[in-house]
Structure formats: C-alpha cells, structure tokens
C-alpha cells in the first residue's frame, strides 16, 4: 500500500451502521444463535449493550460490571422495567444487576454464566490486570462462551488522525497475530476452543489489513461444572452492587395470581353480561331500539364462540342465574384460552384464585351479583 492510496482512504472510512453498533449486533446475533440464559457484560460502561440484550427473550439473568460506577449510573435507569412490563408481565423472569468492580478480581456473583462478553475491554487493562484477566474470566467464571473484541492495530493507518492508539486510555492495541496468539494460549490453558472473526470490513483493495475490530469467540470444551465444583470456588464478595431490577414475571406467584384473578373475573363478567343480555332480550316486549338490539346480539356469534374455540360447552357448564346471583362455572372459565394458558391445570386455577374470587359453596362456580350494570 503506497502512501497516496492510504491518504485516499483516510477521509472516506465510515462504517454504516457505526462500528459500535456492529459490535453490539454481533453479540445480539450470537445470543440469538446460542440462546444463553445468563449473560454478563464485562466493562459495560453506559449499559447500552445490556439495554439491547434485555429484550432478548432467552435471557433470564443479565449482569454488568465496570470499574467506573458513575458511568454506569448515568443511564442505568433505562434498564428498569417499563410500565408495560408491569401491565403485561412476561412469561420469562429477568433480573438485571450492575456491579462496580474489576475484571482483575473474582467475585462469586459472576459464576454460572452462559455467555460473558468483553467488548473493547482488554485494551484498557493495565499490564497487571491483563495478566490476571484470563484466570478470572476463563478459570474462575468459566462460562460456556466468552466473546472478546479489541481493536486491530493493522487497521489504524486507515483511520484518520489515529497516531498511536484509537483512544487515549488504550494501554495497547494488538495486531491480529498478537491477539490470536494471546487468545490461543489462553484457550489452551483453560480448555476452551476459539474462533476468530471481526466487524468493520476494510475497504476493497485493503482486505489484507483485516477487520477494524477483531473478535475472538471462545467455547468451553469441558461440560458444565457441577454445583459442588462451583461452591468450592466460592470466594469473598468484592464487587459492589449498584443497581438491581427484577422484572415482573408470570413465574413470580404474585404476578401470576393477579393475572389469573384478573382474567377470571373479566371472563366471568363478560359471560354474565352475555347471559343477562340474552335473558333481558327474551323478556323484552318493546322493540324500541332495533339497531342497538341487533348489535348486542353480535357477540353471541363472534366473541363468545370464538373465545371458546372449538370447545363445545355442555349444558351443565353454562352460566345461570339463581336468586339474583349469576353463577359462572369455573370449568367454563378454565376453557378460555387465556385462562388456560396462564394456569395450565384446573387445580392450579383453583389454587390461584382461592380467597380472591367469590365462589359458590362447592367451589365450582364464580358468583356475581346479577344486578344489571346500567342500574
């Protein structure tokens, strides 16, 4: 590459989407492929990657670690659940935790992860920290997959204005050979395999410099350590927790119960309304409002039967009125897809609504006041 062609590129190198987004997308794709449940981001900075990952439906535990608490704190609130998360709790559980600490130290909170990401982290480590890093991440944390990304110094001449390093805080920037030998040695020592890739394609004609960001994806070769092996590792707690958010989830009895109670009462109310409307119209002699009447009939063919799906309601399972009380059989409510999906079994339904919904003496039907709503 001669000097001229190099200058020709300096002004034009521009990544779309921006390189940092490409790195995050790389992780997101990896998550999509391997479906890890527990993911930790070491050097999470302003938590952007964590924020992107929280919507991945496979993840149940997300953790972030950084040496700078104030950077994490600036935007950590975007990791909190949104009102929508409370309004419709998710099926999965999700806990997001942020720790203040260094990758040079071991802490039991980082055990048992499926995926650990270190995006543009290692080049910020001092020599001593870098030395301890493999033992902490590969030896101690020992997750199934580790992803490490770092600048490829061979690309630097193509970047405008980069004299020594891309960032003043970088302690070193490796070329591909340096990174790969470090990675291979680390993988060998801790029984991992490693694959190399990267993001940020070089301009055509310059392919020989490699990706702008080089990435190593490490896979643990030995199976999941048993619980006992992990407890042996237990060390002192050194990280300081700075943030924790537990997302509302239907796995949590509290949210499941309120969702089920809500759905049961709503369904029962709807069936009551249906029943009363039908009875009213049967008794009605005056035909004063033909259009409205017609519209009220509509649900009987649509909503009602559709919600029931193909299910045939036996006569005995239909709601009925007795002494100003409407009885809606629980079995019928259970047959509604939403209720069914939430509870799974009829027994579970009964257990969840016990004490929260007024039931008939034998517990087989929901009781509702028959007074018409308009009165």
């Amino acid at each position, binding site marked *: 590459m001669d000097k001229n062609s190099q200058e020709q590129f300096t002004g034009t190198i521009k990544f779309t989407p921006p390189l940092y987004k490409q790195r995050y997308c790389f992780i997101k794709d990896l998550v999509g492929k391997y479906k890890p449940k527990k993911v930790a981001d070491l*050097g999470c*900075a*302003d938590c952007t990657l964590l924020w992107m990952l929280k*919507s*991945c*439906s496979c993840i149940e535990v997300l953790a972030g670690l950084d*040496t*700078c608490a*104030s*950077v994490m704190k*600036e*935007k950590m*609130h*975007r990791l*909190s*659940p*949104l*009102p*929508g998360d*409370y*309004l*419709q709790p998710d099926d999965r559980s999700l806990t997001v935790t942020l720790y203040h600490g260094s990758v040079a130290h071991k802490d039991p909170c980082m055990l048992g992860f499926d995926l650990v990401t270190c995006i*543009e*982290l290692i080049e*910020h480590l001092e020599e001593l920290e870098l030395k301890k890093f493999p033992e902490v991440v590969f030896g101690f944390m020992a997750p199934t997959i580790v992803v490490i990304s770092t600048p490829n110094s061979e690309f630097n001449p193509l*970047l*405008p*204005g*980069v*004299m*020594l390093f*891309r*960032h*003043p*805080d970088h302690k070193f920037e490796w070329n591909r050979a340096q990174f790969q030998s470090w990675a291979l040695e680390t993988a060998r020592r801790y029984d991992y395999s490693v694959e190399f890739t990267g993001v940020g394609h070089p301009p055509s004609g310059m392919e020989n410099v490699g990706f702008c960001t080089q990435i190593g994806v490490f896979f643990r070769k030995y199976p999941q350590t048993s619980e006992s092996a992990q407890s042996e590792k237990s060390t002192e707690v050194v990280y300081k927790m700075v943030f924790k958010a537990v997302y509302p989830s239907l796995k949590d009895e509290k949210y499941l119960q*309120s969702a089920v*109670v*809500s*759905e*049961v*009462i*709503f369904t029962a*109310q709807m069936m009551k309304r249906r029943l009363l409307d039908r009875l009213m119209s049967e008794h009605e002699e*005056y035909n*004063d*409002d033909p*259009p*409205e009447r*017609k*519209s*009220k009939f*509509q*649900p009987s063919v*649509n*909503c009602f039967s*559709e919600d029931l799906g193909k299910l045939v309601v036996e006569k005995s399972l239909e709601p009925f009125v007795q002494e100003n009380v409407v009885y809606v059989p629980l079995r019928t409510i259970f047959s509604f897809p939403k209720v069914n999906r939430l509870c799974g079994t009829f027994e579970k339904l009964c257990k969840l609504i016990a004490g929260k919904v007024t039931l008939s003496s034998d517990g087989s039907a929901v009781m509702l006041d028959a007074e018409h*709503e308009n*009165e």
Partner: protein
Amino acid sequence: KTIGLQISAGFQELSLADRGGRRRDFHDLGVNTRQAIEHVQESKTGSSGTVIKLTANYFRLTSRPQWALYQYHVGYSPEMEARRLRSALLFQHVELIGKTHAFDGSILFLPKKLGNKVTEVFSRTRNGEDVKITITLTNELPPTSPTCLQFYNIIFRRLLKMLNLQQIGRNYYNPSDPINMPSHRLMVWPGFTSSILQYEENIMLCTDVSYKVLRSDTVLDFMYSLYYQVEEQRFRDVCAKELIGLIVLTKYNNRTYRIDDIDWDANPQCTFRKADGSEISYVDYYKNQYNQEITDLNQPVLVSQSKRRRGNLMPGPVVLIPELCFLTGLTEKMRNDFNMMKDLSVHTRLPPEQRQCEIRRIIDYIQKDDNVQKELRDWGLSFDSNLLSFKGRVVQGEKIFQAGSMFDYNAQFGDWSKEVRGAPLICAKPLDNWLLIYTRRNYDAANTLLQNLFKVTPAMGIRINKATMIEVDDRTEAYLRVLQQNITPDTNIAVCVLSSSRKDKYDAIKKYLCTDCPIPSQCVLARTLSKPQTAMAVSTKIALQMNCKMGGELWSVEIPLKQVMIVGIDCYHDTLAGKQSIAGFVASLNQTMTRWFSRCAVQSRGQELVDGLKVCLQTALREWFKWNKYLPSRIIVYRDGVGDGQLNTLVNYEVPQFLDCLKSIGKDYSPRLTVIVVKKRVNARFFAQCGGTLKNPPPGTVVDAEVTRPEWYDFFIVSQAVKSGCVAPTHYNVIYDTSKLKPDHVQRLTYKLCHMYYNWSGLIRVPAPCQYAHKLAFLVGQSIHKEPNLVLSDKLYYL
C-alpha cells in the same frame, strides 16, 4: 471506553438551550400581571373573616447560605457537532468540573465556581484530534432566578427517577404496588404530581398524590372487543368515538401519546422513511429497534399529532401500532359507569388525614434514599421535612333570600336544600300551558310526575294547570313530530319522559327545541321517577329546574356592588365532531344576579375564540341596557376553561379585545373592567388543623398568602363542601383590574356568586356564571352543535 457520556436524561428532555415558544410552560412562568394593577402593589390580601390554621401540600426548598448556580457556556474549537461527543470531551476534565453538574451540550451548570472566569482545556477525540474547550462563566444565578427554578425541576425529576418511580405524562408513579380492579380490567398506580415554583415567600415543592389509571389491554385488544359488540358498518365510527382523544402508553419506550386519528388504510407492513433516508416497514422497525413482534399484520395504525419536539424529530404526525399501545385513563363511557367510578373512588378518594400521609411519603422517600440525599447535598439543596403550615381566613356565610323570607344555611355542609323545600320562590313562572310527553310504557312514571308536581308547586308559588298529556312511540321521529304538532306560541315548557339514557333521542329533542322551535324543555328519565321513596324529592327538583328554565328566580344573596355586570365564560372542546370548540358566555342582567343572558361562540379549528366572545359581550351589553336603561359601570369577567400555559395568550390577546369591544360601544363609555381567571384543576390542597387531626377546610376558606404567586393578584377559595375525600380549592387569578375594588371585596363577591347556581341548592366550586357557561357550552357541544336561538337567551334553558 471509560469516558462516560455524562449527560442526564432529564436534561436532554428539558434542554435549557432552546427554550422558546414551542414547549408549553405549564406554570405560566414569566406572566407578570400584578405589576400592571396599581392598587394591589402593596398588598393583595383580604381581611374579613375568622382565622383558620391550615396545612398545605407544599414543602419549602432551601439552599445553603450564599448559594448560587453557576452557568457556563462551553465552546469547542474546532466545532464539534454531536452532543454526545461534546459531553464526552468535556468530561475528560472531570477533576476540574467535578462530579456534580448538568450539561446539555452547550450550557453547563455547576454548584461551584471555577477558578477563572474563562477556562481553556484540551481534549482528544477518538480520532486523535485535539480539541480546545473554552468554559466561560456567563451567569451567577441567585436561588430565585427563573433559570434556577427550571433547574430545580430538572434535578427533582432526576431524583424521582432515582427513586425508581416511572414517569407517565407529567407525573411519576410507583409501579411496584398497584391497585388491581380486575372486573374493569384496570390497574391504578399511585404516584405524585410535583412542581417547584417561586411562591409568595419561598421556593416550594408542591406535590400531591395522583393516581394513574392504566389498562392491561392494548388498543388492539380494545378494538377487538369493540368489534364483537357492534355491527360491522358501525365499527369504525364507534372505534373512533371511543379511542380518539385517549392517551396511550407505548409498550417499548414508555411514552404517552394522544390518539388524534385512526388510519384504516394503513397497516404494520407499511413503510416509512427513517432519519437516514432508508425505507423500513413498521414491523421491521419495531423488531430491530425494540425487539417487539407485531403479530397482527392487518391492524390499522394510530396517528398522533405530536406538538412537541421529540429528540431531533420535528413535530409532525407520529404513527403508532395499536398492538404496542396500552390505554390509559378513563373513557367517557367508563366515567359514566357509576359502579366503576364508585369502585375507583374507594381507592383514590382519600380523606384529608390519609391524603396528607400519602403526600408526606414523597419526602420520606427522598430523605431515606442515600443516593438522592447525596445528589441534593452535592447541589447544596434540601427540602423541609414538614408540610407548610400557615393561616387562612373563613369568610362569613351568606344569608339566602327568598320571597319574603331569609335564612342562614348550615355552614359546614354548604347546603340549603331543606330550607328551600316548600318555600315561595323569588319569581315563580306559571305552568299554564305545558306538554308532558311519554311512551306507553312510561305512562305511570309520567302520571306520578304530574301528581307530584301538583303537590309540590303550590308552596313554591307556582301556578299549575293540567299538562297536555301526549303518548308517543319510543322513536326519535315520533317525539319530534309530537313536539312539532303540539307546541304553540303559548306553550311554557315541554316535558319529555324518556325510557333510556340514549343520547341521540335526547340530542334530537334538545336540538329541535333550542334552535328550530325555541321553547324551554325538560327531559326526565323514567327510571329516576320510578322509585317511590325519592319521587317527591325528584319532583321538587324538577319543578325548580323547570321554573328556572322558564325564566323564574329561586333565591338570592346580598350583592352590595351596584351597576355591575358579571360575566362567566367557559369552554367545551369537542374532540370528536369536527374538532370545534364552544365557548359558553353568560352575563348578569339585574342587580340581584338572578337573571342571566347567555350566548355561545362556536369556533372551528384554527379560529380564535375571542372573536366570538367580542360579539357575545356586545350583545350582552345591549341586553343589559334594555333591562336597566343604562350601561353597567363595572364589568367583572370570570374566565374559566383556560388551560395550563395559556395565560399569556389571555393577557396579551383576549383582554385587549375585550377593551376594544367596550370602546366600540360608545365614545363616552369606559366601564371598569376586571378579568379573573378561574381554575378548578389545581394541585393545591388545604387541610384544616382541628385538634390533633386534619379536616377539610369549611366553605368560605380564603387563602391569599404563602401559596399564591408574587407576580400575580391571585387567591384561592374553598367554596364547596365535599362528603368524601379532600376538597379542592379553586384558584382565582385577577389578570386585569381597573375596578380599584379591594381584594377583600373581590374575594367576597366571588364567594357570594358561588351561592347562585340554581341547579344546586348549595355552594358550588365556581361562581354561578362559570357553571352556567359550562352547562351551556356542554349542551351545545354535546347535543346541539350550533348556536341556540337567541329567543331563549334570557332564560336558563340549558340547565
């Protein structure tokens, strides 16, 4: 990587750099109306009444002595565009600036003063470019400066976020302990309203409990359930009617939008152009951006006309996907659902003592959270731990006059329904010739009404003949035909007994009798007449109402002020049909304020309301002249229906137009004008200290100190009594006044007028003319949709 982008989210939203006309200032800051009113320069407080000890929902904000906020301008050379980059570069010098700061990209606020007036530092970009940053002190702001007030609010929002409260709209809510109302599919989140402002003596945080009604179903769920309830061809109309105007909360980023339209021709597969110019479908966009799957690809989309700038986006229509939006708040239908509102009020209507506890909670949260305390300490700010205590006055109750009698009412309940029962009215209008229209099914109800009217009217002094009883089919056309055939020039009033609260029938009758065939009318629901135990009370009320509608007068209070015309104005905004606004305008016609002239101004979108109001005022003066043979020497306008942030427009536009209008009446005519803005929806709450507990302050409580604003001539009056919950005071802001009336007299007059609403034998929240104007605007906006016939204009036909 270690350099954080230390820019607060709150600051981004409330950027100080481009404050201008675009964002609405909800607190009407900077509208200084008191300075132009000479006689209240020294004092704006009244004096009459007895002192009452009050507690209010305000906490003082204190700063350490000699506190100041230092405002710097930050410049970059070479110029840096991106705000993120600008802050990243600046905060490479955190040791200089300190950890406590607020920065929006060009303005930097610090709690401390830097060593030099101008500081130059160098930072290096990731590209290795050296950038010179010049930090120049531009302002030392005292605690009371307007910028500081804004700044306090920004910091306070930061604190609420730190407390894990969720922002919805303007307020913050606690999602962890919701109240569930499964039978209505509602969830209620407790939360707080908060604002920090300069009040009379102190800068204070005004905070009140607020409840957010959320719904666990999405707009799409709602559309589906509606679809099953109505016929296909009516579905879209019904959908629009139910949904337009509602506020939705997006699932993915917690923003609220108002639904302005539904686009039935679009669906989630439609594409739009992103900021970078590329086309993307909504499905893909939400998938990529928020990991949200849109499952129903045939749903229509919602359109919100955003008035606010959101980030870099210019205001324009925002497209929303029904499946990804939750409904918030109550629909009109829900508000009319008595059972639901009752269930809701159990949770949200707190008695004074309990409400005070809930309000205190926010200060508890603030004081118990270490991070929040640290942030406040770093800025040198703190909040009083106690609610504000101060003194108000309770002005004496009024004597109610009727024909030949006078009485006091129960001051605590502010109600005289017992006293007026069976007493002769000031002016009774005879029922010589009137119609009673009913369906066959409601014959009994109609007959009961008739019999009861015969029983109750003689004591009131109302002469009554037997009505012309007419049976009709229960169809709108049948009612209209009967009215058309039977109304003669001598008909006093038409009474219709209706079998259901269906709006279309009512609307059609009202429209016909207010425009084409103008006579007073009274509609009664058969059901309200059907309960024997209340039939007499109901009939009494109906008799009184009918009498008012025909131009009768019920009672009066003493009004010492002479030659004064009182005007009441309120607005109704019709969000559905044609998006027009209606201003109701009423003006007193006599000294005792028992007769009112009314007109209304129908204003379509984009038109200024005030043009119509000018015409109203002109006709009102003409009418007054007819009645009194002279023009009023004073005019006092009570202007209701003014939204937050609209004060400026009122002061600079509406008031000058009123003055113009008065000038046009005659060369020598220059009456004294007072314009008072009436606000019912205020966050202030007052509690009376009674023994060891807190109670609602009694009717007649006036507050004109401490919690009022120094730049305004304003006061609060608690005029009504409530049976449950906390009473809401009404705020009165005198924005223009050449009357030279003492504040005490204005307060007393205002309170007197709260006695004069004839549809309620008791005290109400606002002066009667405001409530009359409201009733008129509501009737026209809901049912008539055009200006009623002026033949009716001297009667309270709209009650």
